[in-house]
């Protein structure tokens, strides 16, 4: 376990790679990782790969970590940022995140270089689950939602489930996660704003034909309200179950603070659920689009 140097600005017992896990029975840890790589994948997104303590490798598809981002500008970044795991590489003991550089936290993250330390805590929340009866699934994502959906391909592949990934993007340059889906033998369909193929009506046609081909035992989506509403409606019509990963501003990540609530609809009742604890992956039929 890391020494607690009380001269530091904050007390922490974060676990370093070489430490023995001080609490092996607990599912979550606060880790000090080492950055392996942190590279641009296109103009807006970076992929960060972290050497981690093996405890962090238990992260499942759809679960997230809470990242303590370094400062982009000298002023402290006060809150952690939630990011779903993009890839767990057990062999090299790494976890990866695909992220969009937007605000202060993610900009700070983008300054990290190989060898730098990075404090992350997790894995947190409930990830995607696959039912044994699902033989083929359809994954539909856009933008950063693809980062969240990507590890589904690994999970499905592990369980011998066929996967069709519909990747929506503004233009071919920003289609993300293509390689990762490909490496797990997913069928890939790209739909783009540039050629109009990303329009809802076209995506609907594509899904309709996948249903026809028997390739849609379950739906998965993330990253676009428009696409969520489409899948939800098609799922309802065809009786196809689905899951969606949701986002909300977070504070604790553990279910304690009730900052991260979103509205869900269960049997006609509107209720609040915590994205960090009851999610971030929810039953699609309960999700309320915005």
């Amino acid at each position, binding site marked *: 376990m890391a020494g607690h140097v009380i001269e530091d600005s904050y007390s922490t017992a*974060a676990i370093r790679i070489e430490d023995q896990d001080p609490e092996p029975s607990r599912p979550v840890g*606060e880790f000090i990782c080492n950055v392996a790589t942190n590279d641009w994948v296109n103009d807006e997104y970076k992929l960060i790969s972290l050497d981690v303590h093996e405890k962090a490798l238990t992260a499942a598809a759809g679960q997230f970590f809470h990242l303590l981002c370094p400062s982009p500008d000298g002023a402290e970044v*006060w809150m952690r940022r939630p990011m779903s795991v993009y890839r767990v590489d057990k062999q090299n003991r790494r976890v990866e995140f695909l992220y969009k550089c937007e605000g202060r936290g993610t900009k700070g993250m983008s300054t990290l270089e190989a060898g730098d330390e990075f404090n992350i805590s997790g894995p947190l929340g409930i990830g995607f689950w696959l039912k044994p009866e699902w033989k083929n699934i359809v994954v539909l994502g856009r933008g950063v939602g693809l980062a969240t959906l990507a590890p589904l391909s690994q999970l499905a592949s592990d369980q011998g489930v066929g996967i069709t990934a519909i990747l929506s993007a503004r233009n071919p340059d920003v289609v993300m996660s293509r390689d990762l889906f490909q490496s797990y033998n997913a069928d890939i369909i790209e739909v783009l704003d540039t050629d109009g193929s990303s329009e809802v009506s076209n995506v609907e046609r594509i899904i309709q034909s996948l249903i026809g081909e028997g390739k849609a035992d379950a739906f998965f989506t993330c990253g676009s309200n428009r696409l969520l509403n489409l899948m939800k409606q098609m799922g309802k019509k065809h009786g196809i179950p689905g899951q969606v990963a949701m986002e909300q501003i977070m504070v604790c990540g*553990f279910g304690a603070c009730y900052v991260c*609530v979103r509205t869900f609809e269960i049997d006609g009742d509107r209720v*609040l659920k915590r994205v960090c604890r009851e999610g971030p992956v929810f039953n699609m039929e309960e999700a309320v689009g915005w």
Partner: protein
Amino acid sequence: MVDLSVKIGDLTLQNPVTPASGAFSWEYADIIDLNRLGGLVAKTICREPRFGNPTPRMAETEAGIIQSIGLPGKGINYFLENIVPEYKKFTPPLIVSCSSEDPEEFAVLTKELSIPEVDVVECNISCPTRNTTGGNFSLNSEHTKSVVGKLREATDKPLWAKLSPNAGDLVSIALAAEEAGADAVCIANTFLSLKIRTDNFKPALGNKYGGMVSPALKPIVVRMVYQCAKEVKIPIIGIGGITKAEDVVEYMLAGASAVGIGYAGFRNPSALTSIIDDLEAWCDSRGIERVSDLIGAVDDDMEMDTLNAASAGV
């Protein structure tokens, strides 16, 4: 090895480090050993179910956050049936925070919470985001005295009153709580704040106002603890901006008998237990035998000659 235990009235805490209400739940057992804490402090509950405030409930600020949760919860029955048993899986005393805008209902709630499983009733009379003008009893010493008096009648449990840093003359409020029979005062809740977005001219929080939480505020709250400790006899739980063992020491020197920690557990979920470890190490390295010896031990006998002071080195 230092004796870390402290007494709050008749109740002994194994160490002075407790989580702050609303910033903690049994779910933190996913990462730390809750049995190591000085106490378990549940999120403030209300008698009836509440949704809480509109989102967004948190916004980052220059140094810290403002938040406005609005005390969501499923009400007293759900709490007693489902949440108390979760806490009772752990050994430290259970401190249940509760609140109401109506003194009569507040008293009933307090009574209903006075079951054997509950060790302390903490009355949150200072939630800044519920009602910014009235209702927030601890802005006023008369209101404080009257509501705490009612709760005192309703329970035999140790009764702690959580006070507001937004009150001007906090000492008189603390004295009112003491007079009305509180066994301890918790200083303090959050600082009423407002953030306006310059992109759309709207308040950043769904509830407009929020309570500010930040390590930055510690010197203000330490001052409040110090001022109150000079005047009240009941123990003080110092809460605000603690992120390391030395901050616990600072609050104790100022007069606190124990502390509550919120933000630090958000930033570093392993913070609470590591602060306890560090506190132990800090005391041991200085030969302090009882952490309780630190309570009020500030050396505040000052050189008051300006010229003498200004001829000393840096």
